[in-house]
């Protein structure tokens, strides 16, 4: 089997994930696109393991990446639920709390400087 086949599949899967991260609005769909990108990386690891190394190093790293993905999606969904509880939506474009907080803090600092 040509090595280029799994590698190209991984490239296309990764780019589909990039498109999903950039174009989607719901945070949970963003997390699904992250999973696609992590799977593309796993496919690369397993393909290179089957090609040259052949001592299961790539497969071990792929299992590690799957574990990382499980931790990531657990924390990510906890943050999504917190966002939903605080705002009533899970819209990534509408969640601008950090930017607003930043501006407010800067204004407060300016006002404090004026007062003193």
């Amino acid at each position, binding site marked *: *089997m040509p090595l280029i086949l799994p590698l190209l599949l991984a490239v296309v899967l990764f780019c589909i994930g990039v*498109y999903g991260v950039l174009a989607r609005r719901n945070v949970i769909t963003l997390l699904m696109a992250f*999973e696609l990108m992590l799977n593309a990386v796993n*496919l690369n690891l397993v393909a290179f393991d089957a090609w040259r190394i052949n001592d299961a190093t790539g497969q071990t790293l792929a299992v590690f990446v799957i574990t990382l993905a499980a931790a990531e999606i657990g*924390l990510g969904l*906890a943050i999504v639920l917190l966002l939903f*509880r605080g705002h009533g939506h899970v819209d990534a474009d509408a969640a601008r709390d950090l930017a607003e907080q930043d501006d407010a803090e800067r204004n407060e600092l300016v006002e404090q400087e004026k007062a003193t």
Partner: protein
Amino acid sequence: MTTALFSVAGAVALIASVLVVTSQRIVHAALWLVVALGAIAGCFGVLHAEFVALVQILVYVGAIVVLVLFALMLTKAPTNPLPSLTTGRSPFAAVVAAVLALVLGAGVVLAFGNEKIKPVVDGSAQAVGTQVFKTWVLPFEVLSVLLLAALIGAIALSQRKKED
């Protein structure tokens, strides 16, 4: 034979993942994710990584997609089609993804265009276990600490009081 099997599984994975990022119904996107991850598990199986394929099915399809579906349920995700699920900047996103695919694909073809994967005899759990407990012991332990940290973090995030 393996090439044909891999092509079939890869085509299923491609179609399903395109539907994951373009579907207008969010629950359908989550269910297409199951198909995509299962097809990628099939690709792992064709590449003689049976253990990785089984772990993929157990962890991804069994745990992660169920978590995603629970999150969809808890955030009251609508089941009707939502055109606003994709933002207005999706053409730009498609251009970025296509350019990235062209660059990465050209690099991969130039670097590995003529290489072949030789058929291997074993890709079993025994080899992976030997590697984990021989070469990769320290990353394995670090990963277990990371999982514990993620667990505590998820509990701390979800138990925050309302007046905070």
